[in-house]
């Protein structure tokens, strides 16, 4: 690859100064004249029939202008996966968890809205509820959705190879149970929506969303109006991590009231609502059986995974499918039998969260791999290296892995943490561990999966870039601009980007599945390339050169053969104009991941993603054996992201992921008692503070993926797959205790140490 000028630079995010000065506008920072404020009334029961909702008390509160309940809205179900729609914006016949939406008000002030909510009277018929997924699967359990009598709303049973035979051929068989907990995404910005409607019935919605175009579709469906009547604009979004993928009652209600009352309406969630009534990472119960060959080859695996889905589906079928397929990477595995269930319970709802179903199963695999390596007397690093998948190998599930730096990430992480000197050799209480993982870079060929971009070269030589991609703080706009600037041969500062407005910017699926850089990046590159071609045509004519001999770099068009010959980018634009070519110079790009046996995996095998990232996390921990307190001292995150378009932002992704993963390992747990969240606050729900943050060493492994823009894959989600097992494995190295249930609190450590004595 030729020398890159903009790609590969540690450029600050384009909007960093806006954010540093308070100018950046998030949804709640917006207001419109005459705006009303909304609030939602939520169910205090985990499971109940709604007999009657009396809104009259609310309507009497001074300043209240509207109140609605489920029976006032179109009977249109929504859900992020079309085949799994099971939710109304406001509950219609019954409520299914504590926090389910029952009614909403809009008022001239928040004070009035809050008061009004307390004046709504609801008659419920309380129904028996079920909180444990295993109970919920039993015959006779309370039925949560009538259409799903067994409460199993999504399941997968999938066999690769011949598992029965493979277990017979195995020299050793291991079987263990694992459990993971509910994790809240906890983005710092609470969910918010502001909507306004005009007299033609057109609705505009500003929302803290990570997928504006899907939101447009879901909003149109639930409001029962054409998609063309909905415009979704994404202002700055304060983190999402998957939680801002779904449509929420706040989106619907803001739009519904706006249409009804022809006034702007804003809804903002309380932190408590973020914990009780948005989405969380599914808790999993896992039984994992693994057959090993004497030489350390993983020969067969059998998985039974039960995901506690809470009251609704959200991404259920996709989540459980991802969990299955990503057992098949990053290790070579010929024989797998996977049984996975997404089970309804009367609890907060599971959804996509950074890693989406994979962190849970990865924890099981990576923790068990360490047990196996110990029993078999093989170094955990060796066993991983031995089974590491390689680029270009045929994959039993037909995944097409064109680039793979997994082995390198293993070696680099081990080196970074000091594996050779430390593993098994540190004093009691101190230990190191590692774990590996793989993640898709977006999804191939699912409906709504293409990404578009428009590049305009303006008269002054500056560039306008339109992308539908949704930057939620990860820096997507910066990275996409870097890609466009590189392709055009200009500087990053020449790019002005407008993003994520369904009316102005081209279609994009949004931020999920770690596909943004690859998908929107490729689209931007295509658009830039097309615009560049048009410009070069004019320049070539003027220079009497072959267009193939021309190159643009650093705002200069020149001949590759004779670099002295050339002109500035701006001159080239002039040349273009004065050669009577039509202005403006526009390039467009529509990118869809290549259709080499593409699939959603939901029905058939095939290639799921255009590219796969690989990573290893290594941890060094200190366990205070007197109190059970665990301190993560160092983490090394070695990541094959193909190519770092912006190494500083990649590091940022890795560091944030590591600390989030550490939260999953040690601190975080959405606890419920009879369906009620016990710790819906940052006081009791322990997202790590700066005091807990370990020192983190990020190591980028570049493999230049052939499909990724300038070789780039993903770095957003994959890194959150392995920190927890790496830490758990390090704890074992430190104190010789295995933890198969997350999180590992000091209380559990203490108990285990006492048992051990």
């Amino acid at each position, binding site marked *: 690859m030729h020398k890159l000028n903009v790609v590969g630079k540690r450029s600050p995010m384009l909007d960093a100064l806006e954010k*540093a000065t308070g100018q950046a506008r998030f949804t709640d920072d917006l207001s419109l004249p005459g705006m009303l404020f909304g609030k939602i009334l939520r169910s205090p029961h985990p499971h109940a029939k709604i007999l009657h909702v009396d809104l009259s008390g609310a309507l009497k509160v001074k300043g209240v202008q509207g109140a609605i309940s489920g029976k006032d809205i179109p009977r249109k179900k929504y859900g992020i996966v079309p085949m799994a729609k099971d939710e109304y914006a406001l509950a219609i016949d019954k409520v299914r968890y504590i926090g389910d939406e029952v009614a909403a008000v809009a008022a001239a002030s928040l004070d009035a809205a809050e008061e009004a909510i307390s004046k709504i009277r609801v008659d419920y018929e309380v129904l028996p509820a079920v909180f444990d997924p295993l109970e919920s699967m039993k015959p006779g359990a309370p039925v949560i959705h009538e259409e799903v009598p067994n409460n199993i709303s999504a399941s997968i049973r999938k066999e690769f190879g011949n598992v029965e035979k493979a277990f017979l051929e195995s020299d050793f068989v291991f079987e263990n149970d694992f459990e993971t907990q509910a994790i809240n995404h906890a983005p710092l910005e609470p969910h918010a929506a502001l909507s306004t409607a005009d007299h033609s019935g057109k609705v505009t919605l500003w929302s803290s969303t990570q997928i504006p175009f899907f939101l447009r579709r879901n909003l149109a469906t639930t409001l029962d109006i054409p998609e063309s009547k909905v415009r979704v604009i994404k202002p700055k979004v304060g983190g999402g991590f998957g939680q801002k993928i779904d449509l929420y009652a706040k989106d619907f209600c803001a739009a519904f009231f706006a249409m009804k009352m022809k006034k702007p309406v804003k809804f903002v969630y309380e932190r408590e609502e973020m914990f009780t009534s948005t989405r969380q990472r599914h808790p999993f119960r896992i039984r994992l059986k693994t057959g090993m060959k004497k030489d350390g080859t993983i020969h067969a695996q059998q998985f039974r995974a039960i995901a506690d889905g809470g009251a609704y589906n959200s991404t259920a079928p996709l989540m459980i499918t991802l969990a299955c397929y990503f057992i098949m990477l990053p290790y070579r595995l010929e024989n797998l039998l996977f049984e996975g269930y997404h089970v309804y319970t009367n609890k907060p709802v599971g959804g996509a969260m950074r890693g989406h179903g994979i962190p849970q199963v990865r924890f099981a695999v990576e923790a068990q791999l360490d047990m196996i390596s110990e029993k078999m007397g093989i170094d955990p690093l060796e066993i991983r290296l031995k089974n590491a998948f390689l680029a270009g190998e045929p994959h039993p599930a037909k995944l097409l892995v064109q680039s793979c730096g997994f082995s390198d990430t293993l070696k680099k992480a081990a080196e970074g943490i000091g594996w050779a000197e430390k593993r098994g050799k540190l004093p009691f209480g101190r230990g190191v561990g590692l774990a590996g993982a793989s993640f898709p870079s977006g999804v191939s060929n699912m409906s709504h999966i293409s990404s578009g971009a428009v590049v305009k070269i303006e008269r002054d030589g500056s560039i306008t870039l339109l992308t539908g991609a949704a930057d939620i*703080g990860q820096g997507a706009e910066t990275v996409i601009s870097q890609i466009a600037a590189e392709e055009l041969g200009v500087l990053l500062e020449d790019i002005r980007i407008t993003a994520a407005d369904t009316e102005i910017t081209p279609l994009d699926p949004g931020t999920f599945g770690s596909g943004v850089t690859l998908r929107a990046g490729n689209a931007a590159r295509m658009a830039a390339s097309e615009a560049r071609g048009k410009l070069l045509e004019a320049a070539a004519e003027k220079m009497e050169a072959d267009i193939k001999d021309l190159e643009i770099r650093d705002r200069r068009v020149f001949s590759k053969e004779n670099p002295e010959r050339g002109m500035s980018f701006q001159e080239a634009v002039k040349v273009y104009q004065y050669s009577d070519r039509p202005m403006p110079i526009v390039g467009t790009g529509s990118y869809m991941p290549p259709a080499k046996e593409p699939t959603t995996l939901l029905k058939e095998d095939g290639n799921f993603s255009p590219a796969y990232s690989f990573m290893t996390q290594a941890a060094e921990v200190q366990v205070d054996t007197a109190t059970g307190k665990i301190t993560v001292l160092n983490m090394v995150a070695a990541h094959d992201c193909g190519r770092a378009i912006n190494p500083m932002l990649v590091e940022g992704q890795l560091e944030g992921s590591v600390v989030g993963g550490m939260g999953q390992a040690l601190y975080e747990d959405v606890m419920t008692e009879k369906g009620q969240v016990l710790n819906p606050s940052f006081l009791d729900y322990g997202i790590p503070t700066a005091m807990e943050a370990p020192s983190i060493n990020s190591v980028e492994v570049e493999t230049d993926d052939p499909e990724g823009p300038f070789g780039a894959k993903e770095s957003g989600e994959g890194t959150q797959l392995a920190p927890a097992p790496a830490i758990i494995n390090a704890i074992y190295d430190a104190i010789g205790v295995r933890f198969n249930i997350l999180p590992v609190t000091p209380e559990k450590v203490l108990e285990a140490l006492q048992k051990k004595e």
Partner: protein
Amino acid sequence: MKHILKLHVNGEDYEILTEIHKTLLEVLREDLGLTGTKRGCDLGTCGACTVLIDGKPSLSCLTLAAAVRDKKITTIEGLAKDGELHPLQKAFAEKGAIQCGFCTPGMILTSKAFLDENLKPKEEEVKKAISGNLCRCTGYVKIVEAVLSVSEKQ
């Protein structure tokens, strides 16, 4: 109940008619349009609403606006002096200490108050100082780096 409230924010005097039970956060955002101060939890647990009151970091969601009438209030909008950004603002941007940016205003103001009191802090002291400002994006690494880089230049 409404009252006339005089506030001194970012070097300017404001006089507004507002409700007496409003927090400083609400007055800043709703009455003065200073939306740089963020509402992350509204219960004093996340630090996003931190402003400086007489130079000290204060959670504006747990401060009655009426109670700070005679104080000097600094929000993120008032940190730059004569068009020149505060070194912390620059350092946060340059070092990648900002991702989604929602914790940033509070984080920067807390750091400023801290650096004003501690010229040459150790890394552990920086971590402690910003530990009431939660961030879910960065893992804090680059934030600590940014604060230390400014202290080194002091």
